[in-house]
């Protein structure tokens, strides 16, 4: 033996390593091939002799045990298209096959979050979509996919059509498995009835044996084909060391099945019907749950399907139809009457009426001229127009809304943590109870059945479903009403609010102040307005807009100031060749050493003062009307027991007058954004909601327990907001509050039912009062009850709080 025993060779046929002492060689085409045994040599010769050599190449490519092979299946270049990059992290959306219940989601999130380089991983229960935020330097998307495959879930990059395919496939396979289960269970029922009848009336042993064998034959496909998802889940739960409910179901049905096989040989009582009914009933529950899940996520889907899949785009002087997903900013697209806009854009040519109901809730069509902005998903009613795309389909308004809703559905409400912790401890506990039950009842047949019932009945699924389903339905319902919750945690926090703080401009008022008086000092009106227009030009503040609208109506063309800077809550300053140009509040000018005449502090309107090079030039008065529904909202809030307060950068007088008019409890005026945040911090109890326009209220929105923005339809991606009212209606705030309270009530009901179900069912099963079949039925019904209860949120009337 020349070779050291430690050096191993690799067999050409079975690809296993072996010791040189076992070597078998064969000369093939002048090459020496090495085999571990004669069997492998024979197999190789037969395979290659029959012209099947390509099997070996195929195998080497496909062996899924081989990490590299998986890595090529998850091609990095391909996956890279789906990664979006942030400043110091990247995110990717994946659709996950193989998720069966809430505990799968728990496992995926838990295992991924343990992985170095993964910042966060969230699975949306409704869509089985996994959103991973990760550090590209530490982990690649392909590595993440491999990790997922190893724990038993198959990932695919997300796209709406993939999602459709995945759910379609899942439903079809589930239907097939369920159909098979029902078909065979019916046969089985026939045999069982015959056997029971025989039990009482006597039956000849051969017939009995035959019936039992037939029962075994029809049960086998139910357990192994229909029950495959459970068996697979149980297997992976063992590999991952994360016991889940599949394990309970698999243990229950497999032990009934194998015991019956054993009993068949010993000619004892068989329980094939138990094994088959467990699978059939639980599958029925799953099927129902899946369809409910789809119903719940339909709101988001509908939103996404509003934007058409195809767009007619100008390419090389010709109109061609392409996939809307491929639209890029700058593309020119053509729309005829009756089409929906595939992407956000600006009308380049033509005019039309647009139905924006889907986005703004506004039922009346809006006239849009050349240059007007259009939002994807809205309906072009009358004209044939050309539109310049301003945002790719993926960045369009409705995609952002849909993404927001999906993220929200994946964000857990704090109540769920309790349920999760219980669910994870629950399964080992149940296994223990099952074993104890078996021994307590003396280890006989009855004991065995009782133990099986314990396994089957004690499923934490209802517990796992209680919160996510309610959060999912509530966020979906909210999205339909134009209320976007950022997550389950926000939903819960919103339900516990005590105080609502309002910003004034743009929130309680329309945010479109109009100039109601011009008071130039020392210069003529024309010159005054020109200077004012120059400094305000380019600002997005509502007051600036009001002023610019007014100057435009006077045919004043503003020349822009190069270095105008906005001081939030104060005003704007710009340096010109002639000196410092200031426009803003009285306080702002005084801070810069400008002396203002006393007479100006008298009106309840907003004022913008102007000074140039140290000289005071006068002021304009702007009048901002309260929103139509502001009074109704504040009155209702008061009736419901909320404290209300007004936080504004405006003058005391303005704030006081509005406070009085709307019946708000208190007000704080002349605040900078930082002041607002500080005030919110100081408010008693943390349960404060700040309602603002999201632009200059950002710090306050972040500080408040719940930051709510009332977005002018397209500004929904306000980072600092937790709750976004995407329609310009303040009264939606009431709906949001009502929805959150209803959701919390439903969640509490769900948890109560799930807990009490287990509390009642488990002792019943352990004490032998339940047959396994009823256990399975009870389990399926408990899940169905929870889901159905959550679905009520879809129809609940939000107007009576």
């Amino acid at each position, binding site marked *: 033996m020349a070779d050291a025993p430690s050096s191993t060779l690799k067999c050409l046929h079975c690809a296993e390593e072996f010791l040189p002492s076992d070597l078998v060689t064969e000369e093939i085409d002048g090459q020496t091939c090495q085999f571990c045994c004669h069997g492998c040599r024979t197999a190789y010769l*037969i395979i290659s002799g029959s*012209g099947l050599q*390509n099997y070996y190449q*195929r195998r080497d490519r496909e062996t899924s*045990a081989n990490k590299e092979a998986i890595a090529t299946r998850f091609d990095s270049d391909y996956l890279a298209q789906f990664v979006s990059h942030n400043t110091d992290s990247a995110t990717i959306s994946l659709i996950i096959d193989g998720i069966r219940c809430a505990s799968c989601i728990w496992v995926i999130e838990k295992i991924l979050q343990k992985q170095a380089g993964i910042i966060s991983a969230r699975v949306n229960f409704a869509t089985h979509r996994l959103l991973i935020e990760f550090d590209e330097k530490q982990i690649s998307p392909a590595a993440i996919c491999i990790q997922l495959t190893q724990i038993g879930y198959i990932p695919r990059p997300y796209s709406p059509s993939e999602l459709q395919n995945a759910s379609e496939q899942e439903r079809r396979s589930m239907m097939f498995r369920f159909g098979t289960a029902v078909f065979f269970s019916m046969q089985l029922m026939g045999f069982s009835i015959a056997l029971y009848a025989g039990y009482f009336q006597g039956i000849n042993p051969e017939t009995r044996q035959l019936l039992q064998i037939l029962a075994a034959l029809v049960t086998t496909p139910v357990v192994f084909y229909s029950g495959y998802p459970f068996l697979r889940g149980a297997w992976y739960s063992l*590999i991952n060391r994360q016991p889940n409910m599949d394990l309970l179901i698999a243990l229950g049905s497999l032990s009934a099945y194998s015991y019956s096989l054993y009993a068949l040989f010993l000619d004892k009582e068989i329980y094939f019907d138990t094994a088959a009914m467990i699978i059939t009933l639980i599958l029925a529950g799953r099927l129902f749950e899946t369809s409910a899940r789809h119903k719940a996520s339909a709101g988001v889907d509908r939103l996404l399907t509003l934007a058409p899949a195809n767009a007619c785009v100008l390419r090389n002087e010709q109109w061609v139809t392409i996939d809307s997903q491929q639209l890029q900013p700058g593309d020119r697209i053509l729309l005829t009457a009756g089409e929906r806009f595939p992407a956000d854009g600006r009308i380049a040519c033509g005019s039309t009426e647009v139905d924006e109901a889907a986005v703004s809730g506004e039922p009346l069509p809006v006239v849009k001229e050349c240059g007007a902005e259009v939002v994807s998903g809205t309906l072009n009613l009358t004209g044939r127009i050309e539109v310049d795309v301003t945002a790719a389909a993926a960045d369009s308004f409705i995609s952002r809304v849909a993404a927001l809703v999906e993220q929200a559905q994946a964000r857990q409400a704090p109540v769920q943590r309790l349920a999760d912790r219980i669910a994870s401890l629950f399964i080992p506990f149940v296994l223990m109870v099952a074993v104890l039950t078996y021994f307590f009842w003396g280890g006989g047949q009855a004991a065995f059945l009782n133990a099986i019932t314990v396994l089957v009945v004690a499923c934490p699924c209802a517990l796992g479903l209680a919160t996510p389903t309610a959060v999912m339905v509530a966020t979906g319902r909210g999205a339909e009403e134009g209320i976007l919750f950022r997550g389950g945690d926000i939903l819960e926090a919103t339900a516990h609010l005590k105080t609502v703080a309002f910003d004034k401009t743009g929130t309680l008022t329309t945010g479109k102040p109009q100039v109601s008086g011009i008071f130039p000092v020392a210069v003529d009106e024309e010159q005054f307005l020109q200077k004012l227009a120059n400094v305000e030009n380019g600002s997005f503040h509502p007051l600036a807009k009001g002023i610019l609208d007014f100057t435009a109506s006077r045919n004043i063309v503003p020349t822009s100031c190069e270095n105008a800077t906005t001081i939030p809550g104060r005003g704007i300053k710009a340096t010109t060749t002639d000196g410092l140009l200031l426009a803003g509040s009285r306080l702002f000018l005084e801070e810069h050493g400008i002396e203002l005449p006393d007479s100006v502090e008298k009106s309840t309107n907003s004022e913008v003062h102007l000074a140039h090079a140290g000289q005071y030039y006068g002021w304009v008065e702007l009048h901002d009307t309260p929103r139509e529904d502001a009074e109704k909202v504040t009155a209702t809030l008061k009736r419901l027991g909320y404290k209300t307060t007004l936080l504004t950068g405006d003058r005391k007088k303005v704030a006081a007058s509005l406070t009085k008019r709307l019946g708000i409890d208190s007000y704080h005026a002349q605040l900078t954004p930082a002041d607002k945040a500080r005030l919110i911090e100081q408010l008693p109890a943390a349960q404060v909601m700040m309602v603002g326009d999201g632009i200059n209220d950002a710090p306050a929105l972040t500080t408040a327990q719940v930051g709510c923005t009332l977005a002018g339809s397209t500004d929904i991606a306000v980072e600092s907001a937790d709750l976004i009212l995407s329609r310009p209606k303040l009264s939606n705030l009431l709906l949001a509050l009502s929805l959150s309270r209803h959701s919390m009530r439903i969640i509490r009901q769900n948890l109560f039912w799930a807990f009490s179900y287990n509390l009642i069912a488990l002792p019943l099963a352990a004490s032998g009062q339940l047959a396994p079949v009823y256990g399975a039925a009870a389990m399926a019904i408990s899940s169905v009850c929870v889901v159905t209860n959550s679905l009520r949120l879809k129809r609940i009337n939000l107007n009576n709080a």
Partner: protein
Amino acid sequence: MDPLISMAFMTGLLGSAHCIGMCGGLVSALSLTVDGRNSGVLFHLLYNLGRTITYSLIGFLVGWLGSAMVVKNSLQEITRVLLIGSDLFIILIGLGTAGLFARLNIMTLEISGPISSMTNAVKGLRRLPPALSAIPLGLMFGFLPCGLLYAMALTAVQSADSLTGALIMAAFGLGTIPALFLVGSAAHWFSTRRSWMLKAAGIMVALMGCYNLLNHIRMLS
């Protein structure tokens, strides 16, 4: 039920860690259709059914042979030596496979089969649709030389009963089936435990040998 049957089943289960390399590869290659796709679960099922039928047939024949040997009183002396000798051989082989002696194990029992005739048969059968060719292919490859198979066949001889022999072999065949269905990560999990499973199978074989040895000593004394 004869404990040998359940032991044979266990041997099959454990020993299939060995099968998955050789037989698994063979059946996977055979299941490829002409256009290179897998022909699915049905093919595997039928193939394995065929293989198990062959095993049972072998078990039936050798069991009958064994019974014939025991019955002939004239051969008693030879029988005794043969029986005890083969028991000892099986125990040795089992222990060897379990890792006690490096040189003697089940692999070394394997010899090459009639390659050219089998290859020709495969070529002919592959003209049939996969579902039809599966059983004949299984029947044929049941005869493929395999160390474990010999050990089981020897035990079947010693059972000295054609029915028990057939049952032992059928149980062994059934035991090998599950492993051949494992794919992907499960197969990987399996193959990493290949060596200890094979060792356990060896111990199982040795145990069967011991059981037979005890029986035969009792029977002959």
